[in-house]
């Protein structure tokens, strides 16, 4: 039994008990699932987390608070479209339906008994991460310039194994995930997004129950969620209860009106054109996680620049750092390659030749020859910011 599975089975009962009693909402009645309040969610996060909005709840830490090879749970960004449900693991069921040979329903405890458990480290990043870099301002959650992402270790079973067990009918092309997050009002549309079969069948796409070896925190999808690593976070349905196999992309507002980009670039400030693409994999991106902006250094002291680089599909080929506003670039050291969809740590040693203000720019390249742009193409909903990250420090005289 792998480690995450043992810990999961060991703590599941305790967490289920917490779900039934742990909040004011739940205390109003143990049977119907309640809602976890924002204060309870925030209490599980580091004080450094900036909360961008309360309704819906969104929050993240800045780049210099992301200086970890594996993102700890309490630093993972929060992005809900609706509310955080308190679901009892014992009662939770996952149903696979649609274009399948046989409709299947599993309890959470069935999954690790019936399918191989796997643990992968994988990136999740909100489509709007970095939105506040766009000018003119784009509509949506005001994410900071950096930080709307994270790279924890996820434990669960492969979505492919579960789909194979149900048997795919001919024409099966997309898989839609639906989660149990309720809206503010009864008329709220459920958050449903679908992913193409090629991604659904990828070995790294999981139905996950653990995050860094712990049961999923409530706000991150307890007790089950999809993990579609490298792709926009909204693909990774939280509180997953239904998977529907479809012959085409799901039609719904979260596919067709939100999480879309113009098929061809538009002039900044223009509305969404008729031709759009549903957001999928993140383009190549990096950020400098050390030093912190405006740090001070003694004269002559070496500065170790450290950061993380990732790409939604493909591999990181190299990361370059510039100390002269992009006139010249120098290769950074890349840490050993880890899991396919994990971010990769880079470091660059710099010895300042004189006192004053030094800026570091980072630019990552993927194995398909794509580099980060200085400034990302403007789009009406402000998605996919992957421009160069800049950090300036002061070398004292």
């Amino acid at each position: 039994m792998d480690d995450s599975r043992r810990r999961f089975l060991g703590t599941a009962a305790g967490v289920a008990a917490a779900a039934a009693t742990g909040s004011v909402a739940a205390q109003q009645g143990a049977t119907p699932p309640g809602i976890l309040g924002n204060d309870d969610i925030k209490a599980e996060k580091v004080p450094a987390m900036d909360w961008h909005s309360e309704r819906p709840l969104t929050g993240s830490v800045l780049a210099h608070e992301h200086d970890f090879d594996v993102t700890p749970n309490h630093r993972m960004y929060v992005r809900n479209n609706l509310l955080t449900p308190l679901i009892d693991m014992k009662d939770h069921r996952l149903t696979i339906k649609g274009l399948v040979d046989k409709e299947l329903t599993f309890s959470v405890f069935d999954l690790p008994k019936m399918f191989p458990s796997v643990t992968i480290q994988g990136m999740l990043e909100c489509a709007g991460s970095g939105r506040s870099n766009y000018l003119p301002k784009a509509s949506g959650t005001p994410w900071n310039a950096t930080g709307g992402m994270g790279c924890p270790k996820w434990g669960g079973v492969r979505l492919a194994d579960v789909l194979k067990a149900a048997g795919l009918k001919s024409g099966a092309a997309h898989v839609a995930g639906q989660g149990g997050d309720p809206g503010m009002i009864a008329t709220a549309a459920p958050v449903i997004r679908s992913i193409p079969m090629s991604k659904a069948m990828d070995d790294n796409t999981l139905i996950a129950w653990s995050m860094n070896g712990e049961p999923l925190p409530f706000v991150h999808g307890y007790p089950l969620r999809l993990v579609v690593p490298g792709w926009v976070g909204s693909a990774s349905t939280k509180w997953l209860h239904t998977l529907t196999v479809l012959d085409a992309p799901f039609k719904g507002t979260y596919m067709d009106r939100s999480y879309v980009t113009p098929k061809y670039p538009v002039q900044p400030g223009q509305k969404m054109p008729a031709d759009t693409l549903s957001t999928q994999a993140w383009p190549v991106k990096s950020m400098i996680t050390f030093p912190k902006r405006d740090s001070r250094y003694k004269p002559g002291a070496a500065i170790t620049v450290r950061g993380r680089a990732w790409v939604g599909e493909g591999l990181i080929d190299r990361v370059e750092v510039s100390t002269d506003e992009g006139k010249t670039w120098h290769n950074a050291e890349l840490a050993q390659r880890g899991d396919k969809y994990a971010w990769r740590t880079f470091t660059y040693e710099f010895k300042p030749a004189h006192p004053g203000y030094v800026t570091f720019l980072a630019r990552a390249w993927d194995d398909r020859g794509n580099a980060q742009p200085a400034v990302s193409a403007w789009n009406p909903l402000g998605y996919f910011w992957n421009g160069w990250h800049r950090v300036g420090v002061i070398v004292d005289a």
Partner: protein
Amino acid sequence: MTPRIFALSILFSTGVLAQESLVSGPGSTLTENKCKICHELQHIRRQPLSRGEWADNLRNMKERGTPMDEAEMAVILDYLAVYYNREKPAPPPSPDTLAAGGDDPVQKLLNAHACVGCHAVDRKVVGPAFKEVAAKYSPDSINLLARKVREGGKGAWGEVPMPPNSGLSEADAKTLVGWILGQR
């Protein structure tokens, strides 16, 4: 298992609702009432958009479940495209001439607490029509109903919950309920 909608208390009890507002102008009250059902008004204030972007945005919100009809959407679009337009500066604040009831104290309470986001006098929106409430309860139910308005609940009109309105004083709740029970 599909979790049922159960409690909406936290969002309505943060106190954010009462403090937030948009620039006053024709349509501002309706815009506030509809938008703040689900999200903070900072999502509007933080970035002006073009008229076309606002139109797309409203269509998206309608599909996400905002209870508003085409006529209401037209009022909201006109308001947003005048007061939160990235292409031209907003005019100075002016009275919301389109707000229902004008200076009527009950209408002000209905607007301030977003009651009319989900209720109307003579038709069901999300919650029951005020006339249906008046028909169901006797005129001496003021204390009972005032408590339900402030604490929220469900069951009387089906499984759709009524969120608590803890920001509403007991006196104001009684004023509102008294008015509602008069709508017969």
